[in-house]
């Protein structure tokens, strides 16, 4: 009886150790995105074009063409900055299984000042 219990506990101990070691291994490597057991995809956002509409020297809207190296659904943000003013356009749940063209009006409308405008396009999984 005692022998059986000891063997049983020993088996459970080994299984627990294996379970924890596997979890820790996947956890560590998963953060690096290189696990063979649980591959974690890493995405590169690809912005092929940026276009702004200017009316009376005010940047009124933005159009971007975007894709991702990892197809999926993303939330996309485009921030236009010029002369100390900035405006952000937002698109939620964008299906990036292929490239997409996104347009949006901008509020506030920033002046298009010299030396130019910076457009930062950012994306994250939805």
């Amino acid at each position, binding site marked *: *009886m*005692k022998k059986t*219990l000891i063997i*049983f*506990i020993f088996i*459970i*101990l080994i*299984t*627990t150790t294996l*379970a*924890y070691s*596997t*979890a820790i291994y*996947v*956890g560590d490597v*998963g*953060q690096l*995105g290189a696990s063979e057991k*649980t591959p*974690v*995809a*890493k*995405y*590169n*956002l*690809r*912005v*092929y*074009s*940026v*276009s*702004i*509409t*200017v009316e009376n020297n005010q940047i009124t809207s933005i*159009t971007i*063409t975007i894709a991702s*190296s*990892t197809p*999926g659904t993303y939330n996309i943000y485009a921030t236009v900055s010029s002369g100390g003013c900035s405006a952000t356009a937002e698109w939620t749940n964008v299906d990036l299984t292929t490239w997409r063209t996104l347009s949006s009006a901008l509020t506030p409308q920033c002046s*298009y*000042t*010299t*030396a*130019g*405008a*910076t*457009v*930062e*396009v*950012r*994306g*994250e*999984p939805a």
Partner: protein
Amino acid sequence: MKARPPKLLFYFYLIITFIMLIFMFEAYSTLITISEVQPLPRRNSITYFLSKYNDTVGGFKFIVETRSVRLQPTGEYVNSAVITLYWSVEAPEGQDGRNFTISVNLYDDEGRSLTSGSITVCLPKGTNSGSHTITLSNTSIDDVAKVETSISDYRHWCKIR
């Protein structure tokens, strides 16, 4: 025959086994949680700089604006950029316009230049817009973190034949 009551040691083993089982289930559930992780970003933002040039030479005003930049892909590589300009250029009589140099530079995450190109174009006087293609060397789109345009005065009036 009277049944023997379980020994204290038996209860001890039973409790230990129960605790171990809980830990085992907890460990496996952790494993399942990790396997459902979302894609991680390698690069989740790209910056474009659209330049604007504004100057006056000899009383003649120039405004040249970059309105759009389009990277032309061939598969996962880009080899040219199409820049759309809007301009308002004044020129003296006898001259058709002013020469400007338009440049585009692609940078990686560390700010190193990946490729660049430029063209000098004659922008006719008056207010107008047009697109110009700048040739670049083959660059992987996944390396591009920043696209920067610039406009400079070539300091020459031009004639359009």
